[in-house]
């Protein structure tokens, strides 16, 4: 479970600090897939980094309740760029989070294999990142996150750089993996349609500093079909919430 309680964050700048998030509260129960949408620069990525512990909020509290106490990495992140280490082969990249001395070499190999299988890249372990396509690299990044078996998966526009076809196939893959593993997912995206297609609940952030504009549950049954009428209604509702006020 993730619980953000009246979180505020500002970056120091020339003169006055820039407020990025203000009075932001959100609770994500365990196993829920929550998508965060909103225009650029509204603090979506910042929010994920706060949850990941990469940034400390100036105000409020962040509580992460891990399901298991023995996992050294209960929260893990998938970035917009795959961010693979170019000097490591795919298997080395997938095993990156398993190098805290918590798993034996044999168990590590097994988990790397399982994670690659989960994202449909079995047999690619001995290649280097530059030998893979953009979509495959993003799958590796997902496998790297899944290999550590986190309770919470943070995803920062992970499919934004991909072409439409690859993007849709990765969305389906993620839905399947989420259904199979039951992980808590916090998924940032620009795309309202992507959010509505994937998530149990869509949270809209708007304004500067970013505040919670709407939180709308998506009740459509899974597996979902693209462009189903009820999702269209929710998407329209979100667009309304996020629309810029007309210039005076």
């Amino acid at each position, binding site marked *: 479970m993730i619980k953000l309680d009246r979180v505020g964050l500002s970056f120091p700048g020339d003169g006055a600090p820039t407020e990025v998030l203000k009075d932001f509260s959100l609770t994500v129960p365990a196993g829920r897939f929550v998508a965060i949408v909103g225009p650029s620069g509204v603090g979506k990525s910042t929010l994920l980094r706060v949850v990941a512990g990469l940034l400390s909020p100036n105000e409020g509290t962040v509580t992460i309740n891990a399901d298991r106490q023995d996992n050294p990495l209960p929260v893990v992140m998938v*970035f917009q760029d795959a*961010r693979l*280490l170019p*000097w490591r082969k795919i298997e080395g990249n997938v095993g990156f989070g398993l190098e805290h001395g918590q798993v034996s070499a044999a168990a590590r190999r097994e988990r790397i294999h399982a994670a690659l299988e989960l994202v449909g890249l079995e047999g690619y372990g001995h290649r*280097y990142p530059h030998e893979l396509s953009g979509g495959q690299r993003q799958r590796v990044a997902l496998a790297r996150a899944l290999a550590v078996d986190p309770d919470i998966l943070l995803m920062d526009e992970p499919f934004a750089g991909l072409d439409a076809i690859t993007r849709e196939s990765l969305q389906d893959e993620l839905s399947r993996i989420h259904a199979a593993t039951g992980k808590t997912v916090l998924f940032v995206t620009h795309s309202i349609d992507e959010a509505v297609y994937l998530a149990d609940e869509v949270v809209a952030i708007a304004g500067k500093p970013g505040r919670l504009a709407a939180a709308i549950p998506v009740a459509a049954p899974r597996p979902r079909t693209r462009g189903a009428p009820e999702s269209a209604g929710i998407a329209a509702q979100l667009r309304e919430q996020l629309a810029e006020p007309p210039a005076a």
Partner: protein
Amino acid sequence: MTRGRATVLAALGLTVFLAIWELMPALGVVPAQILPPPSALPRAFEREFSSGIWFASVLLSLRNYLAGLVIGCALGVGLGVATGMSVSFEAALSWVVRVLRPIPGLAWVPFAILWFGIDPAAAIFIIGVGVFWISYFAALGAVRAVDRDLIELADAFGFRRADQKLVKVILPAAAPGILAGLRTAVGQAWMAVVASEIFGVPGLGQRMMQASNLLASDIVVIYMATMAACYGIIDTGFVALQSRLLRWKR
């Protein structure tokens, strides 16, 4: 251009160079004492080799070279990486670096003699100082240039301590830049070898100075060629090692 054609042209260039060199003293353009023709070199080498001086000199210089190179580069890379990782450390060192950096290697000779005497240690010191700065700035620059995103990745995957970041991300990411600097150092150290032996530490450089004082220009050329050969062998080996370490690069 095909590979074969390039080799033919390279061989042709070298032949023309040697021919002009041979002809200059033969035609009396320059006296043979000033410029010994290539044809005179094998005999000079044989004399130098059979007396055992050549081999002993090469061995002594090679030892100074390797010791100076390893010590200078280890300190340079170590300090460069540390400076690259810590902004406060860099700030603390910035003026010290500005004071010491412009001093040429030769200017350290008096101190080398004072501190170490006429001893191989003095030569090793001179060589070490020369390669220190090359490897220091290469490592500093390479560490500075490491993609911040990869460091954030290390953070996101729980590698929060500086030593973990160093091993997991910074050193491998900076390796291409550091190795390029080390390759420059491998060449530069040979130039320092001559400078480090001119005050009497035995080796190639000293033997060269003796020969030059005796106007034995053929011996000087022998040692010039020896040094070129040593450099060629070591550089080739280094490039092989470098491409092995960086085989992940496209």
